[in-house]
């Protein structure tokens, strides 16, 4: 059996092992590399930069722990950025565990000494409205009245008793919406209802699987910017200056991609060479 036949018959478990090692070893190298910034990440960041300090920002956490490796780093960076800019942060989720992921981001942000020094107060500077069942119909209701969709926050406080929400009736009182999405309901529904019906300015952070579905919205101006997967998160971390896990893990990601590319090329060459011989 020649080399190319061996390549075609290689046990896939060797490939699994190589991919595993390519992800594991870079974690111990402690090396990061400079990422170029994609236009869609830059425009999202620029839009946030243009918001005046103290703007009201709605962050929707539409994902759960399985998608956290991709979305949590960008969410952490976004929450830290929002706190540093004194944005009034309203958090919610269309996925049951989304608002709990937001709590992780808030706790992470509060470890930052600069943010700690601001003495941010729950209910005044930020609020977590929690999860509400109903998928896209929750967004629809929020277009009329947030209170109808979220009568109470995650701590059980009545909507009207939260100081931050006193003057927030619907989307017209929100300056920007930042959606972190891993599927349905998520970015697509926010675009279809919040953007196209209520004229909301929307930026999104998506899992890499979902990102190609969101790109057409970006081209049509329905999204102001898009963070696609861990790479998007790493770029956003670089722009905001909060370098964390996405930046660290990009080296592992790159090594694994290189392994996959090499095997795709080898597999194709082996296929064509052996087919030619058979003919």
């Amino acid at each position, binding site marked *: 059996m020649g080399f190319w036949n061996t390549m075609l018959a290689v046990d896939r478990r060797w490939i699994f092992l190589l991919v595993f090692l390519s992800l594991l070893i870079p974690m111990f190298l402690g090396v990061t590399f400079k990422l170029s910034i994609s236009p869609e990440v830059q425009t999202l960041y620029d839009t946030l930069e243009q918001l005046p300090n103290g703007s009201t920002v709605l962050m929707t956490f539409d994902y759960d722990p399985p998608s956290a*490796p991709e979305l949590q780093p960008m969410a952490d960076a976004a929450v830290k950025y929002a706190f540093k800019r004194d944005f009034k942060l309203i958090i919610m989720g269309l996925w049951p565990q989304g608002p709990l992921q937001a709590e992780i981001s808030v706790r992470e942000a509060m470890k930052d000494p600069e943010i700690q020094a601001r003495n941010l107060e729950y209910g005044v500077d930020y609020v977590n409205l929690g999860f509400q069942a109903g998928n896209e119909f929750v967004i629809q209701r929020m277009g009329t009245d947030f209170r109808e969709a979220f009568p109470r926050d995650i701590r059980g406080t009545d909507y009207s008793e939260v100081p931050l929400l006193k003057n927030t009736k619907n989307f017209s009182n929100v300056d920007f919406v930042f959606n972190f999405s891993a599927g349905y309901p998520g970015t697509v529904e926010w675009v279809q209802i919040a953007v196209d019906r209520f004229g909301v300015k929307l930026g999104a952070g998506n899992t890499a699987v979902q990102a190609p579905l969101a790109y*057409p919205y970006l081209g049509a101006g329905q999204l102001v910017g898009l963070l696609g997967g861990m790479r998007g998160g790493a770029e956003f971390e670089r722009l905001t200056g909060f370098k964390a896990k996405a930046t660290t893990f990009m080296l592992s990601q790159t090594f694994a991609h290189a392994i996959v590319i090499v095997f795709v090329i080898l597999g194709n060459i082996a296929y064509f060479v052996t087919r030619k011989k058979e003919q």
Partner: protein
Amino acid sequence: MHFDLGVWIGAFLTLGIISFLYKDNPWYKICEAIFVGISAGYWIASLFWQNLVSKLYDNLAPAIVALFHGQIQYNLLYLVAGILGIMMLLRLIPQIGWISRWPLALVVGATAGLQFINYLVSNGVKQIYNTIVPVFGPVSDAGGIPPVATTGEGIGNVIILIGTFTGLVYFFFSKEHKGLFGGAAKVGTWFLMITFGASFGYTVMSRMSLLIGRIDFLVNDWIRGTFG
């Protein structure tokens, strides 16, 4: 050494699931069964509290109490939803299972009607609008697209034009794909393949990210967290 039972359970389950990559084994089966069982339990509890209790009971109960005091409240309409929900469950009784088709028809009809508008506007009209742009020259109002000023953007618009046209040709099955028409369909196929390739690339990135998350958990939370 710092022992955290939750982290050890997480590590046991993670390694159990990953062990499937070597071959199917009882450890993997146990982890799979635990995952399926916990997921089912979690969703039953979640749906019960988030839908039946908070949406139906919390709205309907006060309205029924008020009815006994001679007041008719708007929330009594939730009774209709409750009845439709019960009708849906009747499919569990084979003799009268057909009744479940009525609430199902309502759900399908209402969802189709609402989604039709959403998709028509956001995925249809807006995307068509975004495709019809001058190839070269200024674009004054094209939904966020900046004015075409550079050659690169002009070439990009030409590619969008060719891709959209040939892609549509490929999905036009009323005429046999032969000659010039077949050539255009062939070009459309290439555009589709490139699109699928890009999607596949993103999917690989996504799956690698998830594996990175698990390896990070094993290395940092489990091994370093336990043994310092």
